[in-house]
């Protein structure tokens, strides 16, 4: 709400209508309603993470969410803005950050991560609606740089079906190759099943493909996210890994594995669709999602890190203004010309 007011004020000061960052359109949807709906869509996957990873996951989620809201209130107080932490945006940022962390991280990681997400990535750029980068992913990226060991120490599952290893499938793929991954799950069919239901090592909220996709479909049904973004991003990853991911020539990779492993599902449905940091038009969204998918595959197959969803979305965030300029809606084009 406050972002919309600030935007019009800025336009008034400029005296003209400028091509500016989203949000543009006013509708009956309010920011609190959208934010809390996204939180509800994420909850099943979070609860699933808490169940399979145990008490550490509960602690991490609570620390992230509470510290994010505390930092939000503090910054709003310092900036002399109305303290509206119940609009859910800080809660959502904290929750998304927690979902991208290993379950048993030391207590200071969630707090520092929330600080970087809320204070550095969000409010230093101007607050809600003005941030260039996805705050939760900035927090995660800073934590990976700062404490690489803690951020790659994965929690073994407390409730384990047939897997004992705590290593992530993508980590095993990077270090030991595809056959070792299949072996870890005990067969290809079991691997797909475990990946789909979420019985694998990884960050606490990214494991269950089923619950995340259900949450995403709920948001698409509500009209809060555009289906082209997840479909394009996941499709791009599938096609590119199928073409280049194999060890015996072209088109020998395993697209299903790559589409379900790592943080791709949560990234494609909940991060790449962020209203503030992704393009406005449909064409722009397709370019954005394609770029995210392509960079993810580049990092996974060629880069040094096992997983690239976080960096790919951050990199594409930085070119979002350019994509928006490239794909202007007709009325804007006429006005500029």
């Amino acid at each position, binding site marked *: 709400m406050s972002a919309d007011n600030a935007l019009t004020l800025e336009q008034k000061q400029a005296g003209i209508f400028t091509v500016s960052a989203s949000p543009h359109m006013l509708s009956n949807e309010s920011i609190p309603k959208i934010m809390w709906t996204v939180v509800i869509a994420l909850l099943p996957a979070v609860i699933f993470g808490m169940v399979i990873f145990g008490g550490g996951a509960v602690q991490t989620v609570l620390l992230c969410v509470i510290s994010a809201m505390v930092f939000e209130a503090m910054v709003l107080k310092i900036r002399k803005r109305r303290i509206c932490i119940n609009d859910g945006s800080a809660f959502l940022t904290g929750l998304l950050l927690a979902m991208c962390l290993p379950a048993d991280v030391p207590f200071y990681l969630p707090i520092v991560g929330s600080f970087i997400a809320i204070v550095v990535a969000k409010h*230093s750029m101007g607050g809600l609606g003005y941030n260039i980068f996805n705050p939760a992913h900035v927090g995660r990226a800073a934590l990976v740089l700062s404490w690489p060991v803690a951020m790659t120490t994965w929690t073994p599952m407390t409730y384990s079906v047939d897997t004992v290893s705590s290593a992530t499938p993508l980590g095993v793929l990077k270090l030991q190759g595809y056959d070792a991954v299949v072996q870890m799950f005990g067969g290809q069919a079991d691997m797909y099943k475990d990946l789909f239901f979420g019985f694998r090592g990884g960050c606490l909220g990214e494991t269950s493909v089923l619950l995340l996709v259900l949450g995403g479909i709920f948001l698409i049904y509500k009209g809060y996210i555009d289906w082209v973004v997840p479909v394009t991003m996941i499709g791009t990853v599938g096609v590119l890994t199928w073409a280049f991911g194999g060890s015996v020539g072209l088109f020998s990779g395993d697209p299903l594995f790559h589409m379900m492993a790592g943080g791709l599902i949560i990234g494609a449905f909940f991060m790449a669709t962020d209203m503030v940091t992704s393009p406005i038009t449909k064409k722009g969204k397709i370019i954005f999602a394609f770029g995210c998918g392509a960079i993810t595959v580049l990092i996974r197959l060629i880069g040094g890190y096992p997983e690239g969803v976080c960096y790919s979305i951050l990199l594409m965030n930085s070119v979002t203004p350019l994509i928006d300029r490239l794909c202007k809606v007709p009325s804007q084009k006429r006005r500029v010309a």
Partner: protein
Amino acid sequence: MANLWKIFSKGIIQENPIFVLALSLCPAVAVSTTVVNAAAMGLAVMIVISANNISVSLIRKLVNPKVRVPVYIISIATIVTVIELTLKAFAPLIYKDLGVYLQLVVVFAIILARAEVFASKNRVIPSFFDGFGMGFGFFTAMIFIGVIRELFGNGTILGFSVFGSSYPPALIMILPAGGFILIGYLVGVYKIWNERIEKRSGAR
């Protein structure tokens, strides 16, 4: 005397080379990971910029304006070579840490800028104070950045542990990313500070 003080002091806050003019950010990020390296780099730049301003000011009437930049570069390169050899002989460890950035002092924007903007148009004494002030501003800025980065990125200051051994260092602070974020915030702090100074002098 008051005039000389003004020339000297403007480099420290109002026209701080790193935080206000935003020049020479590359070495500021690259070598400010520890206080010692930051101080060594700051001192080297302070000496080069003062000495170069003197020499440029001395020859300002002899140099043909068309070839002034090569002449300035040769002057800077001479001084940098002297410093480089001195460091190599007396402080080989610091010399190794500074690496290529010490040689890169030759093409630092701030040194060439002071020669061009100030020393080539002014007498020797004011030129020295201008260079000394700018160099001192660079030095203090480097110390400032170095202390914060070493403290949070390594848990130490000048190699002495501050937070104890249980502190888990935040590696981002000694990586370039943390350096850039920190400098961004310090630029903001200096901007607020300068606006306050201006407001106060305006009110007077």
